[in-house]
């Protein structure tokens, strides 16, 4: 029995990721280093709280590893005509996009595991909230990567074109971190960084947020992904020629 198309494409992408020094530095080391800085800052001061610090780390990894590195990979494969060629393989469009983006998601999960170990290896009391934050955050970052790749003409410009949404993602997380959980308004959840941070706060059982607030944050992430998905389907570009 052979692996499905998306798994074969992911396997090839993982190989290429491991062989590309710039991709490893920008996609793996830089976000991990930033995340570790947050771990140590929280370890030293203990001001933000474990859940809030985890939210910030997760936002950094989702914005830089999954979203920015994912967009760069998609644009690189398009400019090399790999996407166009893969479309002629019989694999569905979803399988091709999933296969190309999955390594960025796997890398983010590995980085997250490193953060957990660096933070003392403790898992939150409500692990399900963290799982939802990661899964829904990955979905949002992936869909946004597909949309952003459509208006990114070259891989080296991805750092530029992803900057607004990456900053909005990170800014949302920092905004939430500076606001007590109970004072986060529903409309603030429209920023994925806010919703992710609220979920990790719930996971670590921080005061001011209950299950209903966590579910609202999860719903906000799913709605964001569902709202942008049709745009992603329409906007996605397969051919290097405009």
């Amino acid at each position: 029995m052979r692996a499905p198309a998306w798994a074969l494409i992911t396997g090839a992408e993982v190989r290429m990721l491991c062989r590309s020094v710039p991709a490893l530095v920008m996609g793996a080391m830089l976000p991990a280093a930033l995340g570790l800085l947050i771990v140590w800052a929280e370890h030293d001061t203990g001001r933000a709280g474990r859940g809030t610090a985890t939210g910030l780390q997760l936002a950094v990894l989702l914005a830089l590893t999954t979203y920015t590195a994912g967009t760069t990979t998609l644009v690189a494969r398009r400019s090399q005509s790999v996407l166009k060629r893969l479309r002629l393989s019989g694999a569905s469009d979803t399988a091709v996009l999933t296969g190309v983006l999955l390594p960025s998601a796997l890398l983010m999960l590995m980085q997250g595991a490193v953060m957990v170990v660096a933070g003392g290896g403790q898992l939150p009391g409500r692990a399900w909230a963290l799982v939802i934050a990661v899964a829904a955050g990955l979905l949002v970052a992936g869909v946004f990567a597909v949309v952003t790749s459509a208006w990114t003409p070259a891989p080296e410009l991805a750092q530029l074109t992803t900057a607004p949404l990456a900053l909005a993602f990170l800014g949302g997380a920092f905004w939430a971190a500076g606001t007590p959980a109970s004072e986060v308004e529903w409309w603030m959840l429209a920023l994925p960084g806010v919703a992710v941070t609220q979920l990790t706060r719930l996971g670590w059982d921080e005061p001011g947020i209950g299950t209903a607030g966590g579910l609202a944050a999860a719903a906000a992430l799913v709605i964001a992904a569902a709202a942008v998905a049709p745009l992603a389907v329409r906007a996605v570009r397969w051919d290097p020629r405009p």
Partner: protein
Amino acid sequence: MNPVICRDVHLSYGSYQAVRGADLEVGPGELVALIGTNGAGKSTLLDAMLGLRRPDAGTVRVLSLDPYRSRRRLAPDVGVVLQEGGCAPDLTVAETVRLWLGLHRRLPLTHADALIEEVHLKHRAGVRVRRLSGGERRRLDLAVALCSEPKLLLLDEPTSGLDPEARLHTWDLLRCRLLRGATVVMTTHHLEEAETLADRVAVLHRGVVTMANPRVPGLVRHLVHGSTHR
């Protein structure tokens, strides 16, 4: 039904009409060469046959199916060489061929060595695509096109960048596929290639196809040169 049928096909990029009412029919086991100047619309017409573009008007049928609607269904039966290649640069030759054998699911993965040998890349099997010469990449593109034992080969400039020896080898390889029952449509810039290899030649000029018999001495040359001076 003929493997490739294009009737009154129109294709455009915005306001620029790349193909204007092209008619082309390719019979089973036939090799048709599509020639024309740069920007004549060859690759655009090929994209329509591959189902990557929906014609603005007209009909395209490949192996009796609408390629735009049935691209995934047609994929195992249609071998493709794109003008721009499309093999991932950081995979090796062997990894690339194995990936495509896996994606097509028609031939066993153990067939990779035979395919690599068939295109004379055995000595480069462990080399990454980005380190191959232009000609070697073209040969790898051809190996990938053959990964599903296709009934139809749609090849966009499969011999560009090849040295004379490699080109002759590619011709032999295509003739061998024709003998096994495959049908071939290929674009080329080389008139002598079209005249030597093709059963019929389709000259594309300003988006319109004129068919020519390559066995009539000088006819293809006359049509192509005529089109560039018109």
